[in-house]
């Protein structure tokens, strides 16, 4: 198999402005610090992974980037526009929607159960683009084709579609806004292995065609390797390691990253008991 198709191993020199940048992000929920001093940067056409387990803060970061949570402190900017505070107007919110979009984890609740994929995508196209009917219909057909669905599927209700098909719809809906950045919040975690492979290939194809940047939130290191150039490893809200994906996964420096890597099942793997830092929280974790 060809090695690292299209993803340079060396870190590219910073020539262009990043499409996404966050500095000193912090989020507190009461006395709980979910995210502590996290900074990240995504270059155009490059992809970043944010890796961690439950309680790491990775999902909170994703939600702050798309505006579903408000940072306690720190700044976020996408495509050069600041988005550290909630949008002031509907117009502002829409513009932000054209910068960063998101695909969630659960295919079974990501779509309005009463809307066919066509209707869902059409609604987004109408929201963002003032196109005439013909143009909108063409674009819809393009998007449906891009994600590998056929006409019949695009007219069915979500309940007639499988998990993988629903995720494709969620991806098409997100792409309808033509975002520069697409956040994939564990978007393949709930899929069967064989379907996951299809969707990962699809995401790689989409990136080749549209130059979108992915921010992949995941706990699965193998998926991270497949899809991203750089990785941020989070543990209890703090960044413990970051760097090019291949380097971090082949030669992890931080002890938590090493433990994470050692815990991933692969051919010949055997679980080992009593690895250090196994302190699990007493109270139930989310």
């Amino acid at each position: 198999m060809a090695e690292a198709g299209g993803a340079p191993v060396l870190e590219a020199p910073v020539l262009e402005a990043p499409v996404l940048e966050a500095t000193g992000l912090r989020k507190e929920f009461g006395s709980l610090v979910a995210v502590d001093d996290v900074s990240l940067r995504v270059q155009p056409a490059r992809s970043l992974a944010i890796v961690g387990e439950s309680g790491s803060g990775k999902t909170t970061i994703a939600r702050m980037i798309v505006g579903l949570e408000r940072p306690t402190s720190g700044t976020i900017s996408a495509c050069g526009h600041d988005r550290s505070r909630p949008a002031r107007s509907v117009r502002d919110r829409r513009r932000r929607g054209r910068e960063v979009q998101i695909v969630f984890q659960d295919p079974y609740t990501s779509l309005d159960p009463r809307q066919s994929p066509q209707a869902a995508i059409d609604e987004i196209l109408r929201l963002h683009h003032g196109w005439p009917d013909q143009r909108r219909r063409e674009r819809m057909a393009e998007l449906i084709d891009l994600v590998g669905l056929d006409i019949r599927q695009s007219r069915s209700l979500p309940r007639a579609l499988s998990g993988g098909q629903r995720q494709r719809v969620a991806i098409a809906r997100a792409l309808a806004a033509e975002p520069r950045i697409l956040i994939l919040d564990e978007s393949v975690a709930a899929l069967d292995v064989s379907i996951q492979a299809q969707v990962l290939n699809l995401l790689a194809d989409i990136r080749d065609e549209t130059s979108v940047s992915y921010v992949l939130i995941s706990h699965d290191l193998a998926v991270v390797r497949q899809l991203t150039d750089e990785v941020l490893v989070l543990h209890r809200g703090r960044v413990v390691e970051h760097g090019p994906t291949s380097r971090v996964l082949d030669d992890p420096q931080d002890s938590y990253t090493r433990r994470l890597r050692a815990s991933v099942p692969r051919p010949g793997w055997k679980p080992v008991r009593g690895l250090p830092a196994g302190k699990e929280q007493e109270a139930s974790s989310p």
Partner: protein
Amino acid sequence: MSEPAAASQTVAPAPAAAAAPLLEVEGLTVRLRAGGAMQPVLRDVSVTIRAGEALGLVGESGSGKSMTARAIDRLLPDGAEVDGSIRYEGHDVASLSGTGLRQYRNQVAMIFQDPRAHTNPVRRIGDFMTEALRTNLGVPGAEANRRAVEMLEQVGVGGGARRLRQHPHELSGGMLQRVMIAAALLTEPRLLLADEPTTALDVTTQSEVMAILDDLRREFGLAMLFITHDLELAAAICDRTAVMYAGQIVEVRSSDRLHDDPLHPYTAALAAARPDISRTAARLLAIPGRPLSAFEAPAAECAFAPRCAHAQEACRAALPELAELDGGLSRCRRASELRGRLGTASDG
């Protein structure tokens, strides 16, 4: 690349070949009512587990792996039609009732994917852990508590008697799953059914819990049926692995040979579809189509044929049988001729 030092190698001595199997499932076919008709969810499933042996059961959605475990534990929904037989130590499981069924449940323990869904939030941990001991086996309360505390130590949940007084919500998912394992082992079962016990856990927690499960299983000489969607996970702690597709067993193989020398194209495709943590590939080898359930698969041909890269005319002509090959079983009619071309050692 840093690799952790491998822990216990295979410890359990191979049971005497002449010993009768502990659990024998033969020709199990289950139909459930859905959409007004009886639809098959399991088709002609046969597995054998010997005392002290761990068998992995791997499959995707609709493969029937969970349903198999439920059938063995007599937990099928009402109105299910069951053909074939399940025999535990020679006794027919389907005909057990009353005392016999309770004894069976002491001997065959089950742990589930989501411990919170299977625990009563208002009951203390000590209560539900010792319930079976006290009511079914007549062990006095104090003694039962003592054993519970001891077992909790074994699974790495310290805190002694204090733990017994806690409620499920006071523990994290990983801790609670360890408690469930401890609870399952208290009645000294001979067979453990584990239905995706680590799927809902973080990967580091999963590794820890798997190690505990592996250690204790060997220590107590338990047999185990370990259900998962993760091929490598099953191979890690099971002696043999069975792969299911569309309600049928398509391959049974010793775990150490499963990855390099699979006997069924589906197994090989499943392993190849997984991204590799140690290198980036331009594209993954995705299997076209989607996994079928038993009722969606055509009855008189190989269920995997439409998605199989090696399918031929003969594959669609009749349902292939499970046949022996090199110490394993395969439902692929072309298994012997495809050997060596399926493993990841070769390209595609």
